[in-house]
């Protein structure tokens, strides 16, 4: 690499504002003695590629949709899922509470042999075990809910 090549590179960096003081001094000294580099300096306009209008970026919309699908959309979906689960839980709790209320009313008059004791004995659990609990083994709301969503 010749000195001339080195100074051509310095010229580029000078035009980009990237030359430090020592390099600038060396370039200035060289320009005072080198006609070729002087011509080069006159010709070397800062070369920036013409930037295309942003609307012209090919495939922009497709890419944008893809980015949104991978960022905001899943977050919105999961927010929706959370809301849906919360609504379902409220509904199920309501059902559980309703069942409890029904049982507490009916159990007062319930004189049939209790099958509810089977609820505390899993080996004998029946799908209806929680339907007819005696007052002393009445399940909590949570258990009622569990019994509702897991009817086996």
């Amino acid at each position, binding site marked *: 690499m010749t000195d001339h*090549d080195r100074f*051509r*590179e*310095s010229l*580029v*960096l000078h035009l*980009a504002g*990237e030359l430090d003081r020592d390099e600038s001094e060396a370039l200035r000294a060289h320009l005072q003695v080198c006609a070729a580099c002087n*011509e*080069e300096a006159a*010709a*070397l*306009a800062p*070369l*920036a*590629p*013409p*930037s*295309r209008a*942003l*609307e012209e*970026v*090919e*495939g*922009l919309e497709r*890419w*944008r949709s*893809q*980015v*949104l699908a*991978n*960022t*905001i959309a899943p*977050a*919105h979906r999961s*927010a929706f899922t959370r809301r849906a689960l919360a609504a379902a839980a409220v509904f199920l709790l309501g059902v559980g509470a309703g069942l409890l209320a029904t049982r507490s009313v009916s159990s007062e008059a319930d004189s049939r042999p209790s099958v509810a004791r089977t609820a505390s004995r899993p080996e004998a659990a029946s799908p209806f075990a929680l339907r007819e609990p005696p007052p002393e083994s009445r399940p909590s709301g949570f258990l009622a809910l569990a019994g509702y969503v897991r009817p086996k």
Partner: protein
Amino acid sequence: MTEGAASSFRAALDAHGPRVLLICRKILGDVHLGDDAAQEAFLRLWRALLRDEGPRAPGGWLSRAAASASIDALRRRRLLPRSATDAGVDDAPGALDPPAPRSDAPESAATSAELAARLERAVASLSPAQRTTFVLRHETGLPLAEIASLLGVGLPTAKTHFARAVLRVRAAVADVAAPGVRP
């Protein structure tokens, strides 16, 4: 919180998406790879916003994210060294030789579209390190010191990459760029 993040994200995507997309495509020299890197830059922004660590000035932040995602992609494809220790100035033979001008393009027919196409080809023909430095300096205005740090090279190396890239691109378009500009 997500709603605020979503609206900040959409605003940044609208304001900077096209620019980030172009930067990544130019650095990688490939539309699909560029699109992936640009998406990665925005995924990083999205994760930062969700952590409530969104940048105050998303423009500059995204320039760096685009640079970093593109450089990562070049490294994965082994087009850039992974560390500063094995990063030298890739001075390919003939790197400063201008590509031969196309014989079927008389100067009188040189239009701005022709110039743009020539520039695009010239930038694409640069080495990955030169191209990355050139595109980042021109398209983001990041100082070479910062580009050097993103690339994992020293400032003198980044300066050499940039200067050689400019001279090579200029040589490629000298005959159509402007009257009086010598190759």
